């Protein structure tokens, strides 16, 4: 296993507050989309998958030795070597809660996050995830700010981190709305660069629209 955090772990880490609270519910569509998108990019950066504007290709089944990525890779491979981009996204989205859990466990194994149970009012238990060392989270935030505050060409990993943090409202957890607004042109230019995430964005919007339609449908 690598010492370097995967993109998926970085995304999850960015959603933990200084007090150890999870600022994003792992069961929401936004979090699942962020985790699924991150796993797809992690696999692409490790040359396990590739894609164009229509299709995704599983090109190498060798284990990455990260359980969440191997789970995502196996799930994609079950559907064949060539998948439409939409079906690949849907496939990973379906197991996103498992991927979240596996990636979270990895953060705990690395000693970056430490679960702590608190008892409030003698009975109500609350679990917090304290960061044993906030260097990893600070490094992820700094990478994002360094790219956004400069005109430098970003690395592919930075592109994906910014795209996911923007698309799923994670930037808001550590940047003021006014600052995001000021940097919007740059954020959009950078976020567009990874075409793998275009399908994830499209599918999230489609699911949101479906959910909205269900909520406003009259009960028959």
């Amino acid at each position, binding site marked *: 296993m690598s010492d370097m955090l995967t993109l998926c772990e970085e995304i999850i880490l960015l959603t933990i507050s200084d007090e150890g609270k999870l600022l994003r519910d792992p069961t929401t569509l936004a979090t699942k989309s962020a985790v699924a998108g991150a796993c797809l990019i992690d696999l*692409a*950066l490790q*040359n396990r*998958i*590739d*894609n*164009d*504007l229509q299709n995704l*290709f599983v*090109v*190498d089944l060798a284990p990455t030795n990260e359980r969440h990525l191997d789970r995502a890779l196996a799930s994609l491979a079950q559907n064949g070597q060539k998948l439409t981009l939409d079906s690949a996204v849907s496939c990973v989205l379906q197991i996103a809660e498992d991927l979240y859990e596996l990636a979270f466990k990895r953060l705990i194994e690395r000693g970056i996050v430490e679960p702590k149970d608190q008892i409030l009012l003698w009975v109500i238990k609350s679990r917090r995830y304290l960061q044993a060392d906030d260097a990893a989270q600070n490094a992820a935030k700094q990478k994002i700010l360094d790219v956004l505050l400069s005109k*430098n*060409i*970003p*690395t*592919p990993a930075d*592109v994906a981190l910014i795209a996911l943090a923007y698309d799923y409202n994670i930037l808001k957890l550590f940047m003021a709305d006014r600052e995001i607004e000021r940097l919007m042109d740059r954020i*959009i*230019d950078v976020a*567009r*660069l*990874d*075409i*793998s995430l*275009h399908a994830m964005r499209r599918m999230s919007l489609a699911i949101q629209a479906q959910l909205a339609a269900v909520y406003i449908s009259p009960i028959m």
Partner: protein
Amino acid sequence: MILRIEVAEQANIAFPESRIDSVSATSFQDQLVELIGRSDNVVVDCADVEYVSSAGLRALLVAAKSAQTKGVKFAVCSLKSHVKEIFTVSGFDNMVQIHPDRETALA
């Protein structure tokens, strides 16, 4: 992929082969970054390129970043229309100079 290089007066020109995808992207990127390391001006002539995947775009992004860091001029030219689509959709053309042909790129 073996990257054909032509040394012109104004620039070193790299000619990638037909596909820049997961099979060829790493080798393409390594050779391009090496070329950038010994050039002042690099043009990637994509006249023979029929297909670029996301791995190919990432390889070009890494090369473009390397050129920017080293202060080397870097441009891509002669994209076929179906290949150009992926550059446009991704907004890659906002980050890197794209020219319609080699003559314009070298001008």
